[in-house]
């Protein structure tokens, strides 16, 4: 919290800093930085008390949303260490580093690297590394030892954890207070006592947490993003800032990934490019493909399209990017191409179309490149749905009402999202119109067909008026789809007319 405040407002780094918020009807400190903690200030103190004790204290308002956003950004940046990162409460991150540490020269090296990266971004880090998430959490928050050796058990385990306060189990403050009243202040006090009475008095949760601490019960973390199927990355000794250099690196990454995919006989359906900036920021750009992609050029081009269509024209490298990672989130087996020449040619055409759809979707957005599908619905405005074309081939036509081609089409080419009201004149209230005025132009009806009665689904919207549709052609040959809302005499006495669409 104080890190965010320090980043947001320019605060003298030596000044004690605290974040305040209104808790239990009083302004209290909710977070203090290292300087303030050294002066004996702690969260929970009222603002008045704190300022009386330390007049030099700088207090900023807590902004939970901004803090959560900062934490998410940090979590994104931590993906450079491991793909499995998760948010832990409001002020912590949990990284699953199984099988990762050797890439950074052992666990010590990893811890040092994490600390260096995050403190460069202006963050104060307390970290812990252990066999189980719960143990790492306890170390980070309550211990000076940062790294617990793997496979710790028995006496060594006791030496490391039993001195930690009971709060290191992550219990809520009330339970901790109850325990303290019973003289149970340390984890050791709990761990060395018979379990049944403790469970009976403080709940089975305490025992579960003790087990989790020892790693007996493996608590899984829920990562923010699924781990990719394949990923390749490149580190840069000196950070790159030029957009061209980033694109060149992207092309090389795509080559690497294509090689990996080819070995597995797969193609990428969903790709993600991550750029880790030296200021601790991370940016992820993802693109989808309508067919499994295996060609490096096609992958690089999708990203180029995506960037060309976005707000920025080029890769935002900030102060420089020191790590780029290209991941394949979803891979699919490529059906080997075989068959007669004729079919090969046909599939080449389909592939060219799929490539085109992917490129347009990457540039304009998937919602802008669509196919229309028929839906079984009576109301004309619900009779079809637009689905992103990038999802692949349209489902077989023929669902819903089939509108066979007819010399005189019964449905309009264009449908207005909102039917436009018109003034219509009819011989009898429930008859077809003689003339009508739409968009200030008077149209004499020369030919008309109808009514086609379409009722709203009564089981969903009871009482919705029935519509009588007419196909009307005016003297100059323009064709309109009109309807009268409400059955005259039964549902309404004042017929309202609308234009719902126009024919070609």
């Amino acid at each position, binding site marked *: 919290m104080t890190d965010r405040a320090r980043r947001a407002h320019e605060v003298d780094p030596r000044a004690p800093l605290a974040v305040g918020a209104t808790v239990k009807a009083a302004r209290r400190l909710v977070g203090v930085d290292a300087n303030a903690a050294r002066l004996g200030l702690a969260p929970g103190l009222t603002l008045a008390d704190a300022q009386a004790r330390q007049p030099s204290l700088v207090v900023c308002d807590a902004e939970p949303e901004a803090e959560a956003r900062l934490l998410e950004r940090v979590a994104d940046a931590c993906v450079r260490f491991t793909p499995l990162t998760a948010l832990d409460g409001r002020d912590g991150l949990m990284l699953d580093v199984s099988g990762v540490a050797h890439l950074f020269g052992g666990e010590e090296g990893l811890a040092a690297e994490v600390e260096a990266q995050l403190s460069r971004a202006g963050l104060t880090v307390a970290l812990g590394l252990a066999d189980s998430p719960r143990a790492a959490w306890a170390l980070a928050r309550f211990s000076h030892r940062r790294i617990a050796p793997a496979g710790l058990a028995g006496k060594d385990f006791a030496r490391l954890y039993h001195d930690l306060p009971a709060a290191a189990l992550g219990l809520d403050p009330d339970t901790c207070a109850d325990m303290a009243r019973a003289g149970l202040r340390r984890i050791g006090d709990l761990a060395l006592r018979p379990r049944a009475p403790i469970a009976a008095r403080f709940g089975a949760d305490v025992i579960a947490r003790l087990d989790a601490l020892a790693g007996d019960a493996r608590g899984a973390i829920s990562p923010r993003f699924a781990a990719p199927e394949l990923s390749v990355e490149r580190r840069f000794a000196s950070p790159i800032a030029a957009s061209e250099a980033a694109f060149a690196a992207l092309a090389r990454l795509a080559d690497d990934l294509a090689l990996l995919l080819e070995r597995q006989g797969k193609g990428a359906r969903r790709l993600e490019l991550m750029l880790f900036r030296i200021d601790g920021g991370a940016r992820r750009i993802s693109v989808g493909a309508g067919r499994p992609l295996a060609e490096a050029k096609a992958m690089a081009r999708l990203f180029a399209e995506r960037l060309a269509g976005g707000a920025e024209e080029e890769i935002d490298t900030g102060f420089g990017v020191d790590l780029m990672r290209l991941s394949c989130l979803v891979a699919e087996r490529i059906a080997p191409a075989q068959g007669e020449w004729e079919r090969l040619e046909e599939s080449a055409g389909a592939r060219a179309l799929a490539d*085109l759809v992917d490129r347009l979707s990457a540039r304009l957005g998937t919602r802008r490149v669509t196919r229309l599908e028929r839906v079984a619905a009576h109301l004309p405005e619900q009779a079809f749905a637009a689905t992103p074309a990038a999802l692949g081939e349209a489902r077989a036509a023929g669902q819903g009402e089939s*509108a066979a081609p007819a010399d005189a089409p019964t449905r309009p080419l264009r*449908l207005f999202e909102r039917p436009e009201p018109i003034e219509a004149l009819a011989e009898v209230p429930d008859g077809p119109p003689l003339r009508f005025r739409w968009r200030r132009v008077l149209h004499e009806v020369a*030919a008309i067909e109808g009514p086609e009665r379409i009722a709203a689904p009564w089981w969903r919207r009871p009482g919705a008026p029935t519509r009588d549709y007419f196909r009307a052609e005016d003297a100059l*040959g323009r*064709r309109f789809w009109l309807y009268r809302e409400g059955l005259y005499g039964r549902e309404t006495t004042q017929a309202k007319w609308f234009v719902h669409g126009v024919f070609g």
Partner: protein
Amino acid sequence: MSPGDRAEGVARLRCAVAAIEGRRAATPARAAGRLPLTGALDRALGGGLAADGLHEIAPASPADGSAAMGFALALAARFMAVRGRTAIVMAEDFALAELGALYGPGLAAFGLDLSRLVFVRAPDAPALFQAMEDALKSGAPAAVIGEAWRLKSYDLAASRRLLLAARAGGAPALLTAASAYGAAEAFSSAAETRFEIAAAPSAHLASAGGGRGLPGAPAFTVRLVKARIGVGGAGQGADPTRTFRLAWRAEELSFDEPTLSLPVAAAADDRPRATRA
């Protein structure tokens, strides 16, 4: 030097090289052929509509916008039927908001195969032209329809780019602009063909009650404003004073020319422009 000029320059240089080397291709290879429409129109067009050209379709009046789009869709349906491939319909956001979105069941009833149509919405006209160019160049679609709202950013260079893309991909570009009504003669572009389309009264079917008739097959009044026919091409060329009346047969995916004996046909033909609209 804009990219369009560069592309054009490269194309010209290629032609020059080909000519020096004595190869036949003095112009970029034209393999795509022509699509026949109807007898009279084909004679004017020199055998039909070029399958790898840029064709502009302008409405005659504000209310003829949907007729112009209908004509473009009918052409696309014919290209799709001949080539058995997907057509791409692109439109500017503003055109869709103003004119109404294309309606699936209506398209199906008009003779278009929905499973072989892809729709693209572009945020503005430059994005629309860029998307059209990419689609044409890919060589995948049977035809590309583009619906712009205004032709402000559509100049000689832009049209030339579309034309070259159409040549490169061997697919026709059909461009319509709803707000360019009545301006078919007013602007210049590199397009091969320019049509001006107005709705025409259909051949009404007799109604059972004996009152007003029922609307028949969609009919268009077509004026060929511009037709560029290659050197030595056989065709009469454009004659802006002449109008053609076509009716669209969605079942057969073809146009026909109704005979003048139909009850209302005479009114539409050869009428001075001033009294229309």
